[in-house]
């Protein structure tokens, strides 16, 4: 091949290149970036090469770079002349024969086909592949690519990085040609300035201004440097850019060299990027061969060459002065600025350093003009930015988006949100120099200024999504550990400051931190940020400072409560299941006791952890299932059903008496202190049990006739038989807890009387006031809230409500109401404004309701209730909704449309939530939140009134049984601490010897489930639907536990 000396040769080469990119035969291109290779792309390529060679096929085979969709690798592009190019995903070597066979028939293998590309804007050229395959979506229609604007990644995954001809074919080096022939250097610099292009390495300094400094510097030698020392954990855009399109980088640098008067360029690339090094080496050779690098470039009197230098992998060498020191052969330590590199850089000569991605933007700006560029992105941040979207989202990969795009777009639309059943908590941007942005702020536009205001930075474009399994304290600790080990050690704040910050954070994650250290860490972080010598130290505290700002409660949990909600910090949790349980039941303990056949001990252990084990064994939302590590093998251990089995085996048999005596015998000596518990719901019962066990005199005041609260009055018999609950309450009574029924506090007894009569008062009044929706027609006969409806059924006064019931809502109360209606012989329909997967009700309950014939109407909001002449309900009109933007909960907000549907019915049950009885709360004189819940100290459960504590739904708003009981347990501990002045709680549930050896084998059985009555039988009566595990199944289920609680 000859050198390009004039436009004639150049054009001829372009034609020749086009014949490679769009050949007269089918073309198969395998994505062979590092991520593709990691997923088996080399095997695919070899299998294709082998088959094509073996069969002598007329197919052009190419190795291209990466198209960005990491979670779908390996990607293979298939093109038949005249047809769209089709992207196949997750291709394995074993698929090759099928692909070729299909191709020989002009078909695309349907199960592998992902999307098609009909035409492609390379920015520097426009390619039309063809039109066809109507069954396939266009690439831009896929959520992952929606809104993406590929400028930097314009060629990635489409052309062969090894072949300069293909780069020239898609318009490569035209911008350079234009600059060399037509343009004055100053006018190009003006163009770059006008484009508002800012450095993509992180700091965001205006590129044009930086170039101007270098252009104006007078020296015999000037350098331009490409910083490809990409070292942020989770960031790999520069690697992919160089691997997939090395000439794009070279073209930008050569233009930069020409207009700034530099004669030498240097690419400083990480040694750990071998493929990028290889592709770049080859590209440099080819460019020299073609006369694009070296003397008399493109036949003009311009001499410029580029060297590649491999860095040894020090993160700090991404800092420009450290990078220069490293290039000079010194150890990579930054130098003070001023003097800036533009004055005294490499070897003391004027030098300009830009990030890889900055260079890729140059050719498009030169060809299309600055106005085109500034139209993309936001006012202050023009153009696009490539992000590596990784972490807890379903679609991961490289994403190029216009600057100013809100984070929601990245996380939910492109990333597809968190995995099922989880919620995204935060996004970390900018790697170790960046910060964490909480989900409440996801409407934040991603640009330099806004991220900076939130304490984060754009950085090189790392974007790590985190869900509730990520501990923010541990995240902060992780990033400080990283910068700590990458600190060069030159300046004191970074060297010693980060070391101390790491020590403090390590203490937090081990549960030895103090509040004073939290204050000190904040001051230390600000000192390191404000006084460090270089960017590494100045930004290293960002992850700590932002997590402390946005996730202070997690720090408090670690330091004050010694808890890690995410279960990441091992020292702060027994096991993932225990950590997820609001009651912190020692689950591995009762599983092992049952495994050893010690049912009595197991019962005692369970009851001491959870005084309503049979009830919760039936109705708990079982958060433990989501955390159980057994699910990585097959399915989580059915912990809830096992403790139900253990409880049933005792409560409902003749073992009850001896075991009740055993538990009563554990009661501590009387303390002489008395406690009043207001409310006999799950929260009150739990607190009463523990307080009695600790030796206090406990009286429970309840305005209803029986104990149990929602368990007794709202949860239907078929889910929780009343006799089971009654037996649990009986055991609590055996500990000496006194109950006063029909004793409404505020009416029968006043708070002042309680204050005088007791050493402490615990308010667990629950949320018994039903929320009301503002809906025309709620005054009609046949409209009623869920709670009174369920309560009337629970107390045996079945109301006559006609034949058809519509239930509005998506929670457990809605499902309970509908299923109860079915048992009353009614037809029931649940109307919910979101989708099924968004329903807060327990999934198994929703399934059971469907089996029993309950109908569901999703994406439907109530519009009005229509009545007949006598004031009875006749129908419910609903407005169809569509899903709009994502809200703070990570669910899409339903937006009401104009489409109205009429649903004939005789009764409407409103199950839209419950709130605290505001009249009581206001009359109490205690400080309240806006919603009417009591304000309490999160760690001590104290209200604004001395000796008054509160817990359960009354402080959290309507929640569920286990959360409520968790509050009750914690309140008992805190009340005891306050009354006795010492911590006595930890010892009360101990005293069991059980195996702490890791099990040699675990049961290989799949998860055992409870047998259930058939839907035909169960709708006929009130019989309990879930029968419970058999003895053999329960024992085997216990053997499925992996014993995460055993460590070391």
């Amino acid at each position, binding site marked *: 091949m000859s050198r390009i000396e004039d436009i004639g040769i150049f054009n001829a080469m372009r034609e020749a290149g086009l014949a490679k990119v769009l050949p007269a035969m089918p073309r198969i291109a395998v994505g062979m970036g590092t991520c593709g290779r990691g997923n088996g792309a080399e095997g695919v390529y070899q299998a294709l090469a082998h088959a094509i060679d073996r069969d002598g096929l007329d197919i052009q085979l190419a190795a291209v770079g990466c198209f960005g969709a990491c979670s779908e690798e390996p990607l293979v592009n298939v093109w038949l002349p005249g047809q769209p190019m089709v992207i196949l995903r997750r291709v394995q070597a074993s698929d090759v024969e099928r692909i070729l066979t299909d191709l020989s028939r002009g078909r695309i293998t349907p199960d592998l086909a992902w999307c098609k590309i009909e035409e492609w804007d390379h920015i520097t050229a426009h390619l039309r592949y063809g039109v066809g395959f109507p069954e396939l979506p266009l690439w831009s229609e896929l959520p992952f690519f929606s809104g993406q604007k590929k400028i930097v990644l314009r060629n990635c995954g489409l052309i062969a990085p090894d072949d300069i001809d293909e780069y020239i074919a898609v318009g490569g080096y035209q911008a350079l040609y234009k600059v060399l022939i037509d343009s004055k250097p100053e006018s190009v610099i003006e163009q770059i300035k006008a484009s508002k292009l800012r450095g993509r390495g992180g700091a965001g300094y205006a590129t044009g201004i930086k170039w101007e400094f270098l252009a104006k510097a007078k020296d015999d030698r000037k350098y331009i440097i490409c910083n490809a020392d990409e070292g942020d954990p989770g960031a790999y855009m520069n690697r992919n850019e160089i691997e997939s399109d090395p000439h794009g980088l070279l073209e930008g640098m050569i233009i930069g060299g020409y207009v700034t008067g530099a004669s030498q360029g240097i690419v400083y690339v990480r040694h750990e990027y071998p493929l990028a090094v290889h592709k770049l080496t080859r590209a440099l050779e080819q460019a020299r061969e073609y006369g694009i690098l070296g003397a008399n470039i493109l036949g003009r009197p311009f001499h410029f060459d580029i060297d590649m230098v491999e860095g040894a992998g*020090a993160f*700090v060498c991404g800092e420009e002065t450290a990078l220069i020191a490293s290039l000079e052969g010194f*150890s990579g*330590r930054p*130098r*003070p600025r*001023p003097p800036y590199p533009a004055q005294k850089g490499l070897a003391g000569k004027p030098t300009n350093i830009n990030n890889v991605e900055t260079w890729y933007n140059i050719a498009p700006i030169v060809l299309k003009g600055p106005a085109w560029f500034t139209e993309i992105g936001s006012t202050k941040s023009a153009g696009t930015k490539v992000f590596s979207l990784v972490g807890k989202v379903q679609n991961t990969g490289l994403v190029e988006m216009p600057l100013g795009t809100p984070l929601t777009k990245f996380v939910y639309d492109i990333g597809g949100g968190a995995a099922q059943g989880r919620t995204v908590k935060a996004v970390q941007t900018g790697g170790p120099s960046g910060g964490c942005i909480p989900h409440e702020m996801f409407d934040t536009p991603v640009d330099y200024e806004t991220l900076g205001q939130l304490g984060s930075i754009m950085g090189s474009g790392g974007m790590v999504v985190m869900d509730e399994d990520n501990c923010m304290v541990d995240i902060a600790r992780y990033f400080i550990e990283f910068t*700590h*080990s*990458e*600190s*060069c*050690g*030159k*300046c*004191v*704040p970074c*060297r*010693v*400051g*980060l*070391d*101390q910050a790491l*020590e403090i954070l390590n203490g937090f994650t081990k549960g030895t931190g103090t509040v004073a250290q939290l204050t*000190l860490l904040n*001051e*230390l972080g600000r*000192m390191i940020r*404000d*006084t*460090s*010598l270089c960017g590494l130290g100045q930004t290293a505290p960002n992850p700590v400072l932002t997590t402390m700002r946005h996730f202070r409660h997690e720090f408090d949990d670690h330091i004050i409560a010694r808890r890690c909600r995410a279960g990441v910090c091992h020292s702060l949790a027994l096991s993932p299941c225990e950590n997820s349980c609001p009651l912190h039941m020692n689950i591995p303990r009762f599983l092992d006791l049952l495994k050893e056949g010690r049912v009595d001990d197991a019962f005692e252990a369970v009851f001491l952890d959870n005084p309503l084990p049979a009830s919760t064994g039936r109705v708990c939302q079982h958060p433990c299932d989501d955390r159980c590590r057994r699910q990585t093998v097959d399915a989580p251990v059915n912990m809830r059903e096992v403790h139900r089995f253990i409880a049933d085996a005792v409560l409902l048999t003749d073992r009850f008496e001896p075991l009740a005596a055993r538990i009563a015998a554990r009661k501590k000596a009387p303390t002489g202190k008395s406690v009043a518990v207001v409310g006999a719901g799950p929260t009150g019962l739990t607190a009463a049990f523990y307080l009695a066990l600790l030796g206090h005199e406990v009286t429970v005041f309840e305005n209803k006739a029986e104990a149990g609260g929602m368990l007794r009055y709202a949860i239907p018999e078929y889910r929780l038989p009343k006799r089971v609950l009654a037996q649990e309450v009986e055991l609590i009574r055996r500990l000496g807890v006194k109950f006063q029924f029909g004793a409404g506090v505020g009416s029968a007894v006043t708070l002042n009387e309680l204050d005088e009569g007791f050493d402490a008062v615990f308010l667990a009044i629950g949320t018994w006031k039903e929320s009301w929706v503002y809906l025309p027609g709620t005054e009609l006969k046949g409209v009623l809230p869920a709670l009174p409806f369920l309560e009337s059924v629970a107390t045996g006064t079945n109301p006559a409500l006609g034949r058809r019931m519509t239930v509005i809502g998506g929670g457990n109360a809605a499902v309970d109401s509908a299923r109860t209606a079915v048992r009353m012989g009614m037809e029931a329909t649940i109307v919910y404004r979101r989708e099924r997967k968004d329903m807060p009700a327990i999934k198994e309950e929703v399934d059971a309701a469907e089996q029993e014939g309950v109908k569901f109407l999703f994406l439907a909001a109530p519009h009005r209730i229509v009545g007949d002449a006598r004031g009875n309900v006749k129908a419910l009109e609903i407005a169809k909704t569509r899903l709009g933007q994502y809200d703070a909960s990570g669910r899409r907000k339903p937006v009401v449309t104009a489409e109205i549907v009429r649903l004939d019915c005789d009764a409407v049950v409103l199950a839209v939530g419950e709130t605290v009885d505001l009249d009581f709360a206001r009359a109490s004189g205690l400080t309240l939140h806006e919603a009417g819940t009591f304000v309490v100290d999160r760690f001590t459960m104290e209200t604004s009134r001395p000796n008054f504590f509160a817990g359960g739904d009354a402080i959290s708003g309507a929640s569920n049984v286990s959360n409520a009981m968790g509050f009750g347990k914690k309140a008992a501990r805190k009340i005891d601490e306050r009354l006795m002045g010492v911590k006595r709680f930890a010892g009360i549930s101990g005293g069991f010897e059980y195996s702490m050896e890791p099990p040699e084998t675990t049961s290989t059985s799949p998860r055992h489930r409870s047998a259930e009555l058939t839907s035909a039988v169960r709708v006929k009566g009130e019989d309990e639907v879930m029968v419970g595990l058999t003895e053999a199944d329960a024992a085997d289920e216990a053997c499925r536990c992996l014993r995460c609680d055993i460590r070391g």
Partner: protein
Amino acid sequence: MPQKKISIRIDGVLVATLEGTTILEAARDAGRRVPSLCHMDGLKDVGACRLCIVALPNGRLVPACTTPVQEGLAVITNSPEIAAYRRMIVELLLVERNHVCSVCVSNGHCELQSLASSLGVNSVRFRYHYPILPLDLSQERFVLDHNRCILCSRCIRVCAEVEGAHVWDMMGRGIHSRVIGELDKPWGEAASCTNCGKCVQACPTGAMAEKGWAVEEMVKRTAQVAGAAFRKGVSL
């Protein structure tokens, strides 16, 4: 070329100085006390200890030792924030290694110790590290005690820039950085060492000392070394 005269404001006071001077020099010439450790008159500045931070009008902190003055510049050399940061930096230096003043040859003549006193350090809020560090007694006349080293690099610079021997350099990184002679040889075996002792005199603490002195007896002759450096014109 004669340097241009310019005027700047230090803590609100108008001060005349020469272009090319650093803020530190200008401030000290004007009689302001700006603490420093890694700075030594006559040596090139590296901006490592960050004690000489001063505030620009926009609140940004810059090291006085490496920031040149400009016409119209205004700086504040002390504020509650700056004082707190400086105190914290000294605290960090005290916990980093094993500084036991009461058994140190430099007790009473130590720049770190006197800075701690003048910055009001009366206790340290961080956890002491107590690292295990070697003591190099191999040199005939001098000792190097890493326990007392604050990594200011004055020894490295004085040896390279004034004596021209470049015996010393820094190895490792981050908290594991350490001053080494030649390629981490015992001092006594470092052939390039001329025995001049400039490093010892430049050392602000007791990390480098002459042999034969007991506690409190080692008084450094830093000023003489600085004088030698000026005669060589190193920092210009």
